[in-house]
């Protein structure tokens, strides 16, 4: 137990937790927007892969780090558009299409990688986002390094979460989006386009997922590896449920989850790590996600029209 307390008192642990949470926050916000509008987006895992790849490749080709983020977002929005067209106006199975999008986006990334770098055995590295300590704030003990000595992309993740919360709860657009996930017929009766709102939500949400993927290559690992997303997309879907479809709670969930992840990495270095196989530590994030789903199952406030296609003239 004392090993755990030692870790909890390290500033580097909290800094790592916030860092690990950042890509999850981007992607969880993206999925949350889709689901609040009534569309499940199982393309998330693949869209994170294409974001990680496209952002890294664009930066490697000289687009700059922010250029990479923009390219990643555009790539994500493109796959989001495909998902949106198939499941919104055509009303196709959101499960099947989503999994198809994940497969397509993942294989497109791998295909393009091999096409552009046919002979490469280890992927080239890029110069990632550096830490940007905020003056004075970064000097606060414990909290400073964790919250105010991060990369620009981490600050952006929290900014995006704030904007999502603001738009959802404080603007007419947010009201329309939430309504379209609860009672699309009522929205249509108001003269608003259910199709347009839902497609827009899926496209923008997918763009955010891709930026979450790009965080991995542009801010965390500075290179692209196969299988680097490693189920993070599925974990974000669990985080949306855990956060009861509310942006603030979802961010807290991502931070809590990331803290556990940072903890398990550090526990592997302690005497406990010598006793327990490392695979058990690596399982924890996935086990934790399942436990979170179970814990929230009774209280979850699922958007009423989630996964229900809306067809004009039908009731």
């Amino acid at each position, binding site marked *: 137990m004392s090993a755990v307390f030692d870790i909890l008192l390290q500033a580097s642990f909290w800094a790592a937790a916030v860092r690990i949470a950042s890509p999850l926050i981007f992607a969880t916000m993206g999925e949350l927007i889709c689901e609040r509008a009534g569309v499940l987006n*199982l393309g998330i895992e693949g869209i994170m892969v294409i974001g990680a790849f496209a952002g890294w490749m664009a930066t490697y080709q000289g687009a700059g780090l922010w250029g990479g983020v923009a390219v990643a977002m555009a790539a994500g929005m493109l796959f989001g558009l*495909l998902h949106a067209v*198939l499941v919104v*106006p*055509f*009303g*196709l*199975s959101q*499960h*099947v*299409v989503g*999994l*198809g*999008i994940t*497969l*397509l986006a*993942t*294989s*497109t990334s*791998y*295909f393009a990688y*091999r*096409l552009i770098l*046919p002979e490469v055995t280890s992927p080239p590295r890029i110069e990632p986002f550096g830490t940007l300590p905020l003056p004075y704030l970064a000097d606060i003990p414990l909290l400073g390094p964790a919250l105010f000595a991060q990369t620009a992309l981490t600050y952006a993740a929290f900014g995006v979460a704030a904007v999502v919360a603001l738009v959802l709860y404080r603007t007419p657009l947010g009201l329309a989006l939430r309504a379209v996930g609860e009672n699309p017929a009522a929205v249509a009766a108001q003269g608003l386009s259910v199709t347009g709102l839902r497609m827009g939500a899926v496209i923008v949400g997918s763009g955010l997922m891709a930026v979450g993927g790009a965080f991995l290559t542009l801010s965390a690992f500075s290179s692209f590896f196969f299988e680097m997303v*490693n*189920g993070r997309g*599925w*974990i974000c*879907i*669990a985080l949306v*449920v855990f956060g009861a479809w509310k942006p603030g709670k979802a961010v807290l969930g991502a931070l809590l989850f990331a803290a556990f992840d940072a903890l398990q990495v550090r526990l592997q270095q302690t005497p406990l790590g010598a006793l327990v*196989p490392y*695979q*058990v530590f*690596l*399982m924890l994030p*996935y*086990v934790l*996600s*399942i436990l979170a*789903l*179970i814990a929230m*199952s*009774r209280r*979850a406030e699922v958007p009423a029209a989630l996964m229900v296609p809306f*067809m*004009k*003239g039908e009731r």
Partner: protein
Amino acid sequence: MRLEPIANPGLARRLGFPALALALTVVVASGLALLAGAEPFATIGLIVQGAAGSKFAALETLNRATPLIFTGLAVAVAFRARLWNIGAEAQLYGGAIVTVLLGTGAIGLPQPLLLALMALAAMLAGALILLGPVVLKTRLGVDEVVTTLLINFIMLLAVSYLLEGPLKDPAGMGWPKSAALIAEARLPRIATGLRLHWGFALALLAAGAVWLIETRTSLGYEMRAVGLNPQAARFAGIAVGAVLVKTALMSGGLAALAGFSEVAGLKGHLSLDLSPGFGYTGIIVAMLALLHPLAVVPSALFVAAVFVGSDSMSRAAGVPTYIADMLLALALLFMVLALLLARVRVVRG
């Protein structure tokens, strides 16, 4: 735009759109070949040749199709009852682990008995792996898509642990793989000199059995009823939860047979690369087969041919082998859209 159901779609419409979907996939394949600097017709020719151009190629395709028939059936059975089992990969590895546990000398039995015991135990393991998510779904309403997906990752880590620990082959030169199965635990080849094992025959048998269950038993009727409309099924007196549990046991067991057949028939041992995503590919196989158990067989052969053919083409023409996954994903998306357009009309307004 609005979708308008067509009362009696003609044969041209019902076949035309799916054919168009496949044609579009071929067009995209040509485009990707051009991108990679290869000649489109030659590339597609090389894929076909690599999948079926020789006896060796054809047998390779049949071998690759074997696990895909099992996972395709597993997905088809589950999806038909609208049970979203995305965890065939984990169930496959569950079956493979049990196969290794029983087949490396722990039990001495005559070959037919030992193989039957291994297959049944593997199915039980796969069924139990899916039982958890299904009970969570029926009792607590926990979405099974996410839980089955997450269990895939947990299972792979468990296999990794077993292969570095308790199941590690002492003579494996440090490679994380299990000891080899004993001779009695190996599925024999269908004919001597033919590189095809009895797992393929078992897969065909499984497809027939699933078809019989779905069309000739009351369980099959209930599974379809639950898939079409759970509320109506409940109203008609069907115990929806119990039907879902039975479906899960069948689906998990079928996926586990893929692991059994790969270990006992093809590889002879367990390693972390046993399945290059057979569980996920099973979803494509099942969807292209329209969830029909007998159609899963040709669908699996088609998907296996694309993989085997692309591997061979990639070596010859230099187009990255990931073209296979891209084409299959596109075929899936085009096909679900084509099947919709075969029965509805798009109208303005």
